[in-house]
C-alpha cells in the first residue's frame, strides 16, 4: 500500500484554483521532492495530505504516524528546546524523556537542550523543529520548504543530516522546495509542478549513487539537476 495516494484532488480558494486534478502516489520509504514555482499550490497539497486542509477528490493517507515541518521553525518561545521537542509526545499523552534525548541527538542539539529558541541561530532553531517532528518516530514526514530561510552552507549541512536520517530510519519523506540542487541532492524521486493551478509536469527518479557532499560536484548530479530545471522552465513558459 502506498504511503500517500491522491486522485483527482482539487482545491480552490474563491476564484483561485490552487489544485486541479492532482494524481499522486508515494511509495513507503521513498524520498520525494516536490518542486514548483511559488504560489503554485505546493503548500496546499501538503496541507491536504496532512489533513490540515480539505480538498475535493480522493485522499488516502495513513495519518497515524505523521509529522510536519514548516518553512520557519515555529517553536514555542516560552519553552526550552527540550520542552519544545517534547510537545508532540505531551499532546499525545505519552511523555518520554528518552525519546526527546534521542531526537535531540539525531539533530546534534543535545548541548542546547536547555536553551530558549531566541538564544539559538536560525539553523539551530530549524534543527529543533526537525527534532520535534522526529520525536514521535513518524513514518511519514512532510516538509514545506524547511530550509528556505537558511544560508546555503547551513542548508547543505542540514540536507546531509536529513538524508542520513531518512536512510537510517526508513522514513517516507515528502519535501517541498524550489531549490533544484537541494531537491537533486535529497530526493530519490523528483516531481515538478506547473504554475497555478498545479499539474504534474515531470515525475522521475533521480539516478544518483550515494549522497555524500562530494556528489554535488559530479557530472551525473548536474545532469539530473538539468532535467529538473528543463521541466521547470517548460512549466513557466
Amino acid at each position: 500500500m502506498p504511503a500517500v495516494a491522491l486522485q483527482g484532488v482539487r482545491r480552490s480558494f474563491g476564484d483561485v484554483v490552487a489544485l486541479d486534478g492532482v494524481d499522486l502516489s508515494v511509495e513507503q520509504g521513498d524520498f520525494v521532492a516536490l518542486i514548483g514555482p511559488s504560489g503554485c499550490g505546493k503548500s496546499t497539497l501538503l496541507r491536504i495530505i496532512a489533513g490540515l486542509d480539505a480538498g475535493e477528490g480522493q485522499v488516502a493517507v495513513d495519518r497515524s504516524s505523521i509529522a510536519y515541518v514548516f518553512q520557519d521553525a515555529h517553536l514555542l518561545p516560552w519553552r526550552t528546546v527540550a520542552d519544545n521537542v517534547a510537545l508532540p509526545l505531551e499532546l499525545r499523552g505519552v511523555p518520554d524523556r528518552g525519546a526527546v534525548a534521542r531526537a535531540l541527538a539525531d539533530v546534534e542539539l543535545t548541548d542546547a537542550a536547555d536553551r530558549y529558541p531566541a538564544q539559538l541561530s536560525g539553523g539551530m532553531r530549524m534543527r529543533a523543529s526537525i527534532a520535534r517532528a522526529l520525536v514521535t518516530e513518524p513514518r511519514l514526514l512532510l516538509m514545506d520548504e524547511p530550509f528556505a530561510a537558511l544560508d546555503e552552507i547551513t542548508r547543505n549541512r542540514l540536507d546531509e543530516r536529513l538524508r542520513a536520517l531518512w536512510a537510517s530510519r526508513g522514513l517516507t519523506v515528502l519535501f517541498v522546495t524550489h531549490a533544484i540542487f537541494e531537491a537533486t541532492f535529497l530526493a530519490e524521486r523528483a516531481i515538478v509542478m506547473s504554475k497555478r493551478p498545479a499539474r504534474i509536469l515531470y515525475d522521475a527518479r533521480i539516478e544518483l549513487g550515494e549522497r555524500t557532499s562530494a556528489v554535488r560536484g559530479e557530472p551525473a548530479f548536474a545532469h539530473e539537476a538539468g532535467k529538473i530545471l528543463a521541466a521547470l522552465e517548460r512549466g513557466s513558459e
Partner: protein
Amino acid sequence: MRRTILPPLLAGASGLLLWEGAVRVLKPAAYLLPPPSTIARAAVADSGTLASACLTTGTSALAGFAFSAVLGVAIAVFLSTSRWIERAFHPYAILLQTVPIVAIAPLLVLWFGVGGRAVTASAFIVSVFPVITNTLAGIRSVDPALRDLFRLYGASRGAVLFRLELPWATLSIATGLRVASGLAVIGAIVGEFVAGFSEGNPGLGIVVMTSYRQLRTDLLFGAVGCSALLGMVLFGLVSGGAHLLLRRWHIAAS
C-alpha cells in the same frame, strides 16, 4: 537609575516651590488654592483618616481588579471559542463599555446595597474591558502554524488553551492587567461617590466629597494625592507581578 529618578524629582520640587511662592504672593482664598505646605500639614494632621481611607478604597479596588483579571480572561476565552460567538457578543461588550459608570452606579447600589460590594462592582466594571480586549487580541494573534501543529497531534481543547493560547497571550494579558489596575482605583473612587459609606471607615471618594462640602480644600488635595499614590502602588504591584510571571518570556526575548 539616578538618571530616570532625578529629572522628575527636580521638576516636581520646582513645581511645588513655584506653587508655594505664587500662593504666598497672590494670596488666593484658602478654599480655592492652598499652598503645598498647608496641604502637607493637613495630610499629617489627618493622616489617620487618609490612611484608613486608602485601605478601604484600596481593598475595593484590589477586589474589583481581581474579579476583572479572572472574569476578564474567562470572558475573552469564551468569546474566542468561535467567530460566531465573538460576533454575537462583541457589540454588547462595546456598548456596555460606553455607558458611563456614574450612570450605572445607582443600579449597583440597588443590587448590592451601599458599601464595599457596590464599590467593588464599580471597580470591576470600569477595569474589566481592557482585560477582555487585550486577552482576546492575544489569543487571536496565535501563530496559525502552531495551531496546525497542535491539531496535527490531536491536542484537546484544554491543551490548546493552556499550552498554546494563554501562554501566547501572556504579554497582552499583562498589558491589559496593567491598564486595569489603574482603572480599578478610578472605578472604586467613582463608585464611592455614589455607593460609599460615610460611617465606619470611609474611602477616599467619601473623604473627597466630605472635605469638598466642608470647603477643606487642603484635605481634598491630600485625598487626591492619596488616590494617585494608590493607583501607582497597585500599578506597581501588578507590573512587578507580571514581570515575575513573565520571567520566562524575558529570558526568551533576551
